[in-house]
């Protein structure tokens, strides 16, 4: 790596080129450069506008149901041998953290005069959230979803259709999230004048990683306050979240980056971009990327469609690089155990994605003994129940 870009402050704004340390940037076809510049300008202006902020706050409160609570998970904590707090993003409207970002971006799209939202989705959570916002604002919505994911997340496809969105299968490559991103970018290149690309994770070309994080900072900000109330003004020892592209993790980490809390991102073993530590460039930014020796992007493999992505948001690569966060891989089998444990002990069926973070908490329970761990419960598991029924019956 020969980049000498100035170091961004810890979880502050990226450099003018959109770099977090050596990662990030704007690696897009020339056609999209003006669109990214326009978006950056529009986002800066909107975020600085009290009216925009007030409108978003109103939507988050009265439509999405924020703030989401922090729940003390007593029985789970007894089982694990340490104190466990859950940030309940599963209780948001549409069932995951994705709504925070989507309401922000849809409001921005409206402000920019765009009439059509494009989105990619893996598990369908971001697609459902985008379709929801499009319905709310009266916009057209097209969602690209890998053909493989369409099969394993049938229910979410139906939900998107109900909400009035068109779901288009991505038929190329691995037919999962990576290919859905390719299709969404191709659509955007062709329809850039009237369409807004509502990217669902803290990845992609500048300003997306920064903008998506900013819209999810509400998770970390709320959790910081809620933890302070529970912990006598203190912070948890560990804050953990699952990482695919990494939007829910970057949101909760942002609330604790300037504290002593240890930040732990948990990746699927078959999609551990940070774990493999090989930098690459795809989908608009430089980050860690699963790839072969000549630079072809590898297909991620995970039980969770939402984490089935070979890359990771550039700010996570940066946090790993400077040692502020660490990233742990877990196997599908460990995730299945975690999924059941939380259901059984807390009466909360988690999405498979946050079950990854719990899987790491189970595996490292000895090292965590006596600590307080905050887990970002990024989504509820209703969407995964049919898939898990098959998995558990075949056991």
């Amino acid at each position, binding site marked *: 790596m020969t980049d000498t870009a100035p170091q961004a402050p810890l979880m502050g704004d990226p450099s003018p080129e959109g770099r977090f340390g050596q990662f990030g940037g704007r690696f897009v076809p020339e056609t999209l450069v003006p669109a990214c510049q326009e978006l950056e300008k529009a986002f800066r202006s909107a975020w600085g506008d009290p009216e925009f902020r007030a409108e978003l706050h109103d939507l988050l409160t009265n439509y999405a149901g924020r703030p989401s609570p922090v729940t003390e998970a007593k029985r789970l904590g007894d089982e694990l041998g340490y104190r466990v707090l859950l940030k309940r993003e599963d209780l948001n409207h549409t069932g995951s953290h994705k709504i925070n970002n989507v309401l922000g971006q849809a409001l921005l799209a409206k402000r920019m005069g765009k009439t059509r939202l494009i989105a990619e989705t893996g598990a369908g959570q971001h697609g459902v959230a985008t379709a929801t916002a499009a319905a709310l604002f009266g916009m057209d919505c097209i969602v690209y979803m890998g053909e493989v994911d369409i099969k394993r997340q049938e229910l979410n496809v139906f939900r998107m259709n109900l909400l009035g969105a068109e779901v288009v299968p991505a038929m190329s490559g691995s037919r999962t999230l990576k290919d859905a991103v390719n299709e969404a970018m191709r659509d955007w290149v062709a329809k850039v004048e009237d369409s807004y690309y509502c990217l669902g994770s803290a990845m992609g070309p500048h300003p997306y990683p920064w903008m998506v994080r900013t819209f999810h900072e509400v998770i970390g900000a709320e959790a910081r306050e809620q933890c302070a109330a529970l912990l006598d003004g203190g912070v948890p020892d560990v804050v953990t979240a699952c990482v695919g592209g990494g939007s829910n993790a970057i949101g909760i980490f942002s609330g604790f980056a300037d504290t002593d809390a240890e930040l732990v991102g948990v990746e699927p073993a078959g999609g551990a971009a940070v774990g493999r530590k090989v*930098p690459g460039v795809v989908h608009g930014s430089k980050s860690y990327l699963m790839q072969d020796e000549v630079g072809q992007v590898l297909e991620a493999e995970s039980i969770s469609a939402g984490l089935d992505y070979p890359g990771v948001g550039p700010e996570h690569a940066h946090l790993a690089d400077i040692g502020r966060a660490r990233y742990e891989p877990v196997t599908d089998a460990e995730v299945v155990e975690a999924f059941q444990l939380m259901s059984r002990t807390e009466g909360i069926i988690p999405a498979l994605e946050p079950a990854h973070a719990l899987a790491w908490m189970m595996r490292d329970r000895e090292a965590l003994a006596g600590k307080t761990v905050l887990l970002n419960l990024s989504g509820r598991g209703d969407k995964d129940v049919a898939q898990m029924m098959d998995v558990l019956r075949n056991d």
Partner: protein
Amino acid sequence: MTDLPVGPFEAALRARIDGGGKCLVPYITGGLNDQWLDVLRAVADAGADAIEVGIPFSDPVMDGPTIQEANDRALEGGATPQSILNDLRNADVGVPLAVMTYYNIAFRAGDTRFASDLAAAGVSGAILPDLPLEETGPWADAADEAGIETILLAAPTAPDERLPIICERSRGFVYGVGLLGITGVRESLAESAMSIAGRLKAVTDKPVLVGVGVGTPEQAVQVSSVSDGVVVGSAIVNRMLNGSPESVGELVGEFREALDAAVRQP
């Protein structure tokens, strides 16, 4: 950068332009099958001024269905950047070559190493469509050093003030993107093709070629009334997927003939 000498790619295009002709740069997918070098020769013999050779990438976001399919087939057949460059090293086709691929292929090898690998294989130029002006620096500097011409794209969405900067940094030629969208043959030429050609010609003396959405000899002639020529990709690759090397040569010959006939008539 203005001190750099004109490279072989640009020189070949200038020779055509100075002779009163229009440039034809076909695109073929490298490593598509065992016959791909025969296709390369047939394309050169049929009157291409220079040739773009695609190095397949797993995630070609600028490419439409035809080039995606060729790309996938080449990858499934085991084509790698090195195998394609090795093939090219021994293929003396008599016209300059540029590779077109995505930046991760160069980044993974390392900018300097990839540039010198291209030079060693006898390649003159490189097109990296996901490396726009602001990000091209490290690569383009390494390419300059190795004598590789970095061809930049200019899109219809660019504001006026951006175009001269792109033209200044681009070497070989300036690649005008003919439409808002990905590669592929369209029924008619987009208005944006004529417009980007005119806007680029107004700000540069470098050769201006238009590609993306230029799929028939008629469309090539139409846009070349303003531009210095065309890049033709999907139409050629489609023939490559479905026909013999000779038939690809025939198609290139049709483009050549149409472009030549158009300049003969006042």
